[in-house]
C-alpha cells in the first residue's frame, strides 16, 4: 500500500518526465504522435485543474454565509453574480431561439452572457487594475527616495525612461528618447538576459529534481 501511495506516483513522474524529455530529440512519427495525443490530454486535464482552482473560492464564501460572519451579505452578492452568469452562459436564449453555449454573440447579436461580459466583467476588471495608477503615484511620492548611490541610479534611470517613452518628453528633451532606447536595448537587455539564464538554470535543475524524486512537494494530498 505504501508503494501505491508513495512510490508509484514518483515512478510515474520519473517515467513520464524522461519520456517527454527524450521525445524532443526523437523525430520518429510514433514519438510525434505520442506528443500530439498527450498534449491533447493535457488540455482536458487543464480544464479539470481550473475547476480545482475555482472550488476553493466556493468553500471560503459558503462558510462565511453559513456562519453569518461579518460581511456575509457581500458573499451572497458574489454567489448571485456567479449564478446569474452561469445561467446566462449555459442556458437557453429565448430571444435567439437556441442554447447560448457560452457564446457572447450569436450571428452578430449580443447574448445576455455577452452583455454581462462586456458591461460588467470588462469594466469591473479594468477598473480594479486601473486604480493601481493612483497607488503607484502615491507610493512613488512617499517612498521613491535617493537614500543611497544605487537608489539614485535607479531614480535617474526611471526618470529618463519615463521622459523618453512619451511624446512630450521626446519633444522637450530629444536626447531622452535615444538614451531610454539605449537603456532598454542594451543595459536592460543584458540584465534581463542574465536573470533569464539564471532562472532557466534553476528551472531545469528543479525539473530534474522533480523527475528524480528529490523534490516531492507537488504531490500533496493525503498522509505521508
Amino acid at each position: 500500500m505504501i508503494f501505491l501511495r508513495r512510490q508509484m506516483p514518483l515512478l510515474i513522474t520519473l517515467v513520464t518526465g524522461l519520456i517527454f524529455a527524450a521525445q524532443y530529440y526523437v523525430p520518429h512519427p510514433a514519438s510525434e504522435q505520442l506528443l500530439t495525443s498527450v498534449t491533447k490530454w493535457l488540455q482536458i486535464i487543464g480544464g479539470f485543474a481550473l475547476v480545482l482552482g475555482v472550488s476553493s473560492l466556493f468553500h471560503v464564501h459558503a462558510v462565511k454565509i453559513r456562519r453569518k460572519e461579518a460581511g456575509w451579505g457581500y458573499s451572497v452578492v458574489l454567489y448571485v453574480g456567479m449564478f446569474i452568469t452561469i445561467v446566462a452562459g449555459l442556458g437557453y436564449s429565448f430571444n435567439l431561439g437556441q442554447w447560448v453555449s457560452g457564446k457572447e454573440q450569436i450571428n452578430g447579436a449580443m447574448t445576455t452572457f455577452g452583455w454581462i461580459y462586456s458591461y460588467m466583467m470588462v469594466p469591473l476588471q479594468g477598473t480594479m487594475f486601473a486604480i493601481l495608477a493612483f497607488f503607484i503615484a502615491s507610493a512613488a511620492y512617499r517612498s521613491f527616495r535617493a537614500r543611497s548611490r544605487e537608489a539614485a541610479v535607479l531614480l535617474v534611470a526611471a526618470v529618463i525612461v519615463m521622459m523618453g517613452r512619451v511624446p512630450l518628453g521626446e519633444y522637450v528633451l530629444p536626447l531622452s528618447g535615444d538614451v531610454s532606447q539605449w537603456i532598454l536595448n542594451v543595459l536592460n537587455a543584458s540584465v534581463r538576459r542574465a536573470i533569464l539564464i539564471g532562472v532557466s538554470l534553476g528551472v531545469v535543475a528543479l525539473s530534474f529534481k522533480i523527475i528524480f524524486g528529490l523534490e516531492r512537494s507537488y504531490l500533496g494530498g493525503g498522509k505521508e
Partner: protein
Amino acid sequence: MSFAERMLKIDRRIIFLIIGLCTLLPLLYPVGLPIKISQEVRSVYDYIESLPEESVFLLSLDFDPASKPELHPQAIALLRHAFRKNLRVIVMTLWVSGTGMADQVVSQVAHEMGKASGEGYVFLGWSPGAGSVIINMGQDLYTTFPTDYYGKPTKNLAVLKGVQNLRDVNYAVSLAAGNPGVEAWYLYGKDKYKFELGGGCTGVIAPGLYPLLRSGQINGLIGGLRGAAEYESLINQKGRAIAGMDAQSVTHVAIIVLVMMCNVFYLSMRKASQQQGQARL
C-alpha cells in the same frame, strides 16, 4: 513638523486627485504631439508589409480585460493591417477571460474591413493548457481546434487551406499580458516549429522581453500603449492609443515632478537633521 515633513505626509487623496486631473484634462483637450517610431515596432510592421497576399498570419490575443487599454488598440491596429494586406488571419487566445474580448475585436475589425469568417479569417477561441495548446497546434491544428469558436468544423475552411500545423504559419504575433504569452509561444512554438514570431505586450512585462528581441527570437516588440500608438501611426489610422498619448505624457511628467519633490523634501529633511546633530555636538 517642518514644511518638508508635512509635505511628505500629505493626504494621499490629494495625489490621487492630481493624477486624476492629469489624466482627464488631456483626454478632454488633446494637443497631438508627434510620435517617434521605434525600431522594435517598425520591425513588426515591416514584416507584415513584406508578407505576400494570402500568407497565414496568426494573432494570439493572450490578455484579459485588465490589460484591455494597452493591448486592445494593438490588436485593432494589427488586424486592420493584416486585413488590408489580404492575409489569411487566424485569431485565438490562451487566456480564458479574454475570449469575449477577442471575439468582439476580430468581429468588429473584420466587419469594418469586409472580411467573412471562414474565408478571410477564423476565430478559434480558447483552449485550456497554454503550452500544451501551442505544442498541439504545432503537431496538428485540427486536433487542437476541431471546430472554430462558432462550432464550424475547421477542417474544410477556405482560410485554413494548406495549413496543417504551426509550421505552415508565416507570421505569428502574441499580444501578451503575462504568462502564457510571448515566452510560451517561443518556448513551445517557434523553438521547434520554426515560424516567425513577433510580440506585443503590456508595459509591465516589456523590459523582460528585450533579451528575446535582441537575440532575434522575436523579430519585433510592440510595448504598451506607446507601442500601439506607434503602430497606429505606421498604418495611418488614428485610434485610442494615439488619443491617449497626451494624457500619458502629462501623467509621466506629473510622476517625475512628484518624485523630484519627494527627493527635494527628503534631502532638505536630511540636511536639517544633520545640521541639528552638528549643533548639538
